[in-house]
């Protein structure tokens, strides 16, 4: 039974039906299959322009990061194209190229939260473009790419297969 309530099946008939438009205004998340990706497109080249104008002051001209702002570019500590994925035993910095498992997450996060001072201010075209630029800078896609929903959805990130669901054993002493 619901605590304090007349029973688990009780409806309290509180709240109101949410209008489609109200939901749509917030429902901007992009899952890993990318089915929610919006219309629009952007090239690596245009992304470089957007990045230089709106991102580089914090994340560095080449995505190398600044003292208190995250590094975005780099396949691994040695600059090798194939990431070693040795983050537990080496003091390595995580980047989009060597750590992020899904390209859709990049689109989602930039559209959601960047640029830091004016989140939600970018057009979908600009988000596609800067996503393309960052994936290219991380050697995930060629610098000639133009991304749209179909192209972004098709990208498989280098670190994708390294992620495993929580496999700690609740009773084991170390885990």
């Amino acid at each position: 039974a619901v605590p304090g309530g007349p029973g688990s099946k009780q409806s309290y008939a509180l709240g109101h039906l949410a209008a489609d438009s109200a939901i749509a205004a917030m429902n901007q998340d992009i899952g890993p299959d990318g089915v929610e990706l919006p219309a629009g497109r952007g090239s690596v080249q245009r992304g470089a322009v957007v990045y230089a104008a709106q991102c580089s002051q914090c994340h560095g001209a080449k995505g190398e990061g600044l003292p208190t702002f995250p590094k975005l570019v780099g396949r691994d500590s040695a600059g090798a194209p194939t990431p070693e994925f040795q983050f537990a035993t080496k003091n390595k910095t995580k980047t989009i190229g060597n750590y992020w498992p899904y390209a859709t997450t990049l689109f989602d996060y930039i559209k959601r939260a960047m640029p830091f001072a004016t989140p939600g201010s970018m057009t979908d075209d600009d988000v596609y473009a800067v996503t393309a630029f960052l994936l290219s800078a991380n050697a995930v896609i060629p610098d000639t790419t133009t991304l749209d929903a179909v192209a972004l959805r098709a990208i498989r990130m280098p670190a994708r297969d390294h992620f495993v669901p929580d496999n700690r054993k609740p009773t084991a002493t170390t885990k």
Partner: protein
Amino acid sequence: QGGAPPTAPSTVPPPPAPPRPVAPLDATKMPGAPTAALGARSEYFAPTRIPNGTPVGSSRTPLQDLTGTITPSDLHFERHHAGIPTLDPERHTLTIHGLVDRPMSFTVADIKRFPQITRTYFIECSGNGGAGYRDPKPDTTPQPLAGLFSTSEWTGVPLATLFREVGVKSDASWFLAEGGDACKLARSIPIAKAWDDAMIVWAQNGEPLRPAQGYPMRLLLPGFEGNSNVKWLRRLELGTKPWMTRWETSKYTDPMPDGTARIFTFEIDAKSVITSPCYPNMITARGWRSVNGLAWSGRGRITRVEVSIDGGTSWHDAELLNTPQPKSTVRFQYMWNWQGTDATLLSRATDDAGYVQPTRAAMVAERGEFTDYHYNQIIGWKVDRSGAVTFHGAT
């Protein structure tokens, strides 16, 4: 603290330690201060969270200054990814949609009309303890070691009640929780947690949530890592798969030495910390004293806390000062008669799943020296003959 860089050098440095207040020689000889609208702290007690003063960052509970189990609300730790939004409680709503029969929005007033429950739970950032794991330094207090951890009496509505109100479709298995802050922080949560013990809370220690804790409402997932307890909650979407948001992929995942990274590591493993004595205390007199601290587990009840005074060679059962509740905090105590010898004080918690806190060496062997998050190794304090107390992390 989750490792996020602040956006700029601190603009709000901690206030300088005030000069020692002066009390009358004999306070019985003059009337004292009048009644007041709010009861301020004693001038002799001025704790702070040591903020970094930026929107992206954290500030930690000064555990060494506290006792009992409740964290005063103004000292609850903070961890924000885009600062604390100012939300008007008459405009803020929670919308639930996706795989539901009736997508609905609830005002704060609506939420408060549902049957409410009150529970005491801790919240801990999964980054808590990194300093003592990576780089144990002797001159460390409990605040940087374990201060991304606080305990409150929370009041709110079971999420299950709201899910029944909207009608959950049978294929829904995950939900996305999204905040109304500037990064619209979002986490995917298995739906089982909603049917178990998840709450939408609006009150903390008797009063409305403080803005830094999610005013006017937040998600509370008992025992789950802090970041998943989404603050300033505005939206829940029900679906069939996790959304793989930035926080659950690039941030709060745990690399392992075998080249994997664990994802969706929600539960906080059993953990404990001695908060008295601690650095920078100087034990000035021999004899009895209460060695005490806090223990907790995100998987259930704490069943046992042991204290060692010889660095782990022998262990003694500590007393539990409050009845252990699921996913909540226990203060433990061990009475110690110090006679001026070197000692190493350690604490070790066990929960009702039978899990026992590991040593740092065991954790490093299993998880590597540079793993991220869920640091719960045994830690403690060295006491030397002079009575000086310093951090001991190399267990």
